């Protein structure tokens, strides 16, 4: 099997995201499937800029998976979306 590129995951650690659940997402080690974990490259970003967009439907915390920024992130949603991206 050809070695696949790891999925780039960026968790926002800016003020708005951090206080609305981003802090817990940083503990991904504890709730993400190890196999999924091994197949992605997770890092923090200081602000994805979404918190400043007026009238956006989704709220903090934001996480970028691949090229897409997702809002209203929860642990469950995070696991699902990252797993989906890894298995895609």
């Amino acid at each position, binding site marked *: 099997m050809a070695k696949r590129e790891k999925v780039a995951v960026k968790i926002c*650690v*800016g*003020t*708005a995201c*951090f*206080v*609305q659940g*981003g*802090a817990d997402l*940083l*503990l991904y080690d504890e709730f993400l499937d190890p196999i999924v974990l091994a197949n992605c490259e*997770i*890092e*923090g*970003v*200081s*602000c994805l800029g*979404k*918190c*400043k*967009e*007026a*009238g*956006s439907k989704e*709220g*903090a915390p934001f996480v970028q998976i691949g090229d897409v920024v997702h809002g209203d992130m929860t642990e469950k949603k995070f696991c699902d979306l990252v797993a989906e991206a890894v298995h895609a």
Partner: protein
Amino acid sequence: MNDLFIDVDYAQIYKSGQKIGGDVFLLSRNPEREQIVCTLSDGLGSGVKANVLASLTAHMAHKLSFSEMDLTHSAKIIMNTLPVCKERKISYATFTIVDIRHPSLDDIQVNLVEYDNPQALLFRDSKPIVWQREKILLHREGAFKKEELSRSSLQMAVGDRLIVFSDGATQAGMGKALPLGWRLEGVREFAQHQIERNPSISSHDLSRAIARKANGLDRLASKDDITVMVVYVRRPRRTLVVTGPPFTKEKDEILGEKLRNFEGKKIISGGTTALIVSRLFNKKLKVDLSCWSADVPPVSIMEGFDLVTEGMLTLSKVATALEQKKSLRTLPNDAVRKFVALMMDSDQVHFIVGTKINEAHQDPSIPVEIGIRRTIIGRLRKALEDNYLKETSQEYL
């Protein structure tokens, strides 16, 4: 900002088993008059009674030093007020007053009054300096002998240190490791060695090193309170804190310029601010996920900057820690602690506060608003000035 900094700190170890000290140290700065007064008073015995007497003495010395009164005269008043111990016929408290006036970089006058404490030591870099003390004899009612007060006027220069301590230091080890105790000579040699090893050692570290050594000689169970105070004249250590994006995009460049020209440590506090700076300097910004905290977001690493943190949460926690004079050791290893540590290591802190509005539309309840930023910076500055005697300044961009 001043080009001169007078670093004063002290360390204290109470007599083994005592929860309150018989040694009292007081320090005040009066920036308008460019005056610093520190007083060390040692009450007879130890524990509560000694503490009350030493406090009384130190506070009197302090108040009088800030008055227009001549220091010798102040000292006489104190001595005449101090009770004399009925049995031992000696004074209840000894004291040393250091009155420093520093109108300019090359004019730092020190008036020193010593009464029955061990003699203060002066170092020019690491070289001990001896000087002539003027003796003043006083006879008080009820005292069985004349008492001697000594007074000196000194000029200090950049690189000088004045070290004052209680007899808990000079008598350390007495009857144990050293038959006559550590003595003045011992303290001098030790201090000299410390300065030689680390020529820029702070007053905080040097006073602690001496007190700890004395306590060690007492086998960690000191027989008397040990207090060591150090006055160190040096160039200030500066730190710049940048928080908040500038009002307009055009001002970003100005911020870059200010950062480039600043000599000292640099802290960026705020996610968007950090992104702007990273763009301006073309430096990678990397969030350090190795330390997790529920309270504040992790720090980021950016080449050329000493600390990069999130903004509001971190700043307000830093302000609280400084307001409550939290010791570094008690803080968890997160952004707040790193921030506080840098503040402790600075003499002058300059804040550049960005005034861009329209931040955080997402949730209006989140305090990412300029008014609040201002308030927090105000709290920080006040705590730095009042609790840690740091100089601070601020500008808006």
